[in-house]
């Protein structure tokens, strides 16, 4: 019970309620004191005045130190479409995010997704896996979770804004050396196995996201894709164990070094990101 110092000046009978006073994070809560004060005034029935909303000022973390994260599906692709489409879509995305908490995660993080399933026992289906890919823009944004269950590799492509998705928990927040981990299909099964009863690992809200620098060991070739080729730009595979330097050089034949200097392919999203981030922050806190 906190103290409303201004109103207590008028009322003497509320002194006995002053016994249990605790200040918690500078919280200001109006109590029954105000109501008692009003009733003791004249005995007339007064209209109900709801207590004022609590203002919680968390001084432990400044806004500047919190990690600024804008989910990649908010950034519109460079297309010849009306920007109105993206604003309307963003509005719908924010509306969904107010109902379901979609946390920050990257490819390489371990997630647990619970979705409504009419055919599953208990009508809900929980799947734990490592996120290998985040794709799509706007409301069609997807992420793929991979796990190995009873020796069988299973991947499920979830839609972030599908109403069937009931809960999304990040069990372990981390990044990897690549943003696309499709090569885990050709890697040894130990790299894709995630314990379904894993407990969430606590992560900090400030600072950089930890990067897991493991370089994965692969099954013998042939692989489903030629991951050594520069178009995939894979950094998380130990190529030295499977390919000779001659083979690596041969793979570089498919390199397209001029793409780096192609000005028409440039798409600078920094200004767009700032604007969209501010918009999303404003809408979410409303």
């Amino acid at each position, binding site marked *: 019970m906190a103290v409303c110092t201004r109103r207590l000046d008028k009322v003497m009978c509320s002194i006995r309620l002053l016994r249990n006073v605790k200040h918690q994070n500078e919280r200001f809560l109006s109590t029954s004191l105000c109501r008692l004060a009003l009733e003791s005034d004249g005995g007339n029935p007064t209209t109900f005045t709801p207590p004022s909303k609590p203002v919680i000022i968390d001084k432990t973390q400044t806004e500047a130190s919190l990690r600024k994260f804008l989910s990649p599906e908010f950034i519109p692709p460079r297309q010849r479409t009306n920007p109105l489409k993206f604003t309307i879509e963003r509005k719908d995305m924010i509306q969904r995010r107010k109902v379901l908490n979609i946390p920050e995660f990257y490819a390489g993080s371990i997630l647990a997704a619970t979705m409504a399933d009419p*055919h599953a026992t208990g009508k809900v289906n929980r799947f734990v896996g490592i996120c290998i890919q985040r794709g799509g823009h706007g409301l069609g944004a997807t992420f793929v979770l991979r796990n190995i*269950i009873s*020796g069988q*590799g299973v991947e499920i492509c979830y839609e972030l804004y599908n109403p069937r998705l009931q809960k999304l928990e990040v069990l372990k927040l981390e990044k990897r050396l690549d943003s696309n981990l499709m090569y885990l299909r050709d890697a040894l*099964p130990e790299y894709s196995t995630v314990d379904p009863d894993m407990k969430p690992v606590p992560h900090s809200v400030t600072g950089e996201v930890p990067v897991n620098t493991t370089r994965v060991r692969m099954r*013998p070739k042939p692989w489903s894709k030629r991951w050594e080729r520069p178009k995939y730009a894979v950094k998380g595979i130990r190529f030295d*164990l499977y390919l000779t330097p001659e*083979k690596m050089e041969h793979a570089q034949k498919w390199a397209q070094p001029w793409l780096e200097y192609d000005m028409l392919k440039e798409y600078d999203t920094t200004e767009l990101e700032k604007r969209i981030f501010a918009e999303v922050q404003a809408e979410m806190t409303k």
Partner: protein
Amino acid sequence: MQYSISTSFMIPTWKRILSHPKPHTAFDLRQNTISRSSLAAGYRQAQQELTKAGPNMVLISRSFTGFLTQLSSLTHHNAFSVSAAAAAIQKMTRVRVVDNSPQGTTPWHRAPRVIHVYTKNGVGKVGDRVLLAIKGGKKKALIVGHKMPGERMNPRFDSNNVVLIEDNGNPTGTRIKVPLPTHLRKMEGEYSKLLAIASRFV
């Protein structure tokens, strides 16, 4: 003496390859094949290891890969290319039988292949019946998972899984250890016995 590979279930090319490549060489592993008896014994052991698997899949997979390194012998070449999964399951696809029926588990020198798909187009997805050529005979089967990505929110498996079935829809085996997709439960009426022997749904 002519050696050949004997496999009862779908074994992708990489599993025929014996040992882990040594760090200093990257030789073409497809040149090596194994004799029939050692491979059969090997896969029986590997299968036992896999079926004994509990929650600790990491240990099992490590022992499996460790086991692979033991096999080695150099016989004749048997190199062929495997294309990625394009359509789901059609004629001539090699499939993996996931139940514990004797026809599905005993070794054979040819992997079970689909010879007919009972759909309007020739493409089989989860829940479609197919006809397999298995162990020199024909047998009907039900597709319970494929490599091709399907609908969003539905699982995609790393192998084309199939369960052997009788003409009336009853499964031939008594247990299915591999996880099955939950949307297979839609066919509760036709394949209720098959769903009953499944141990896990995903």
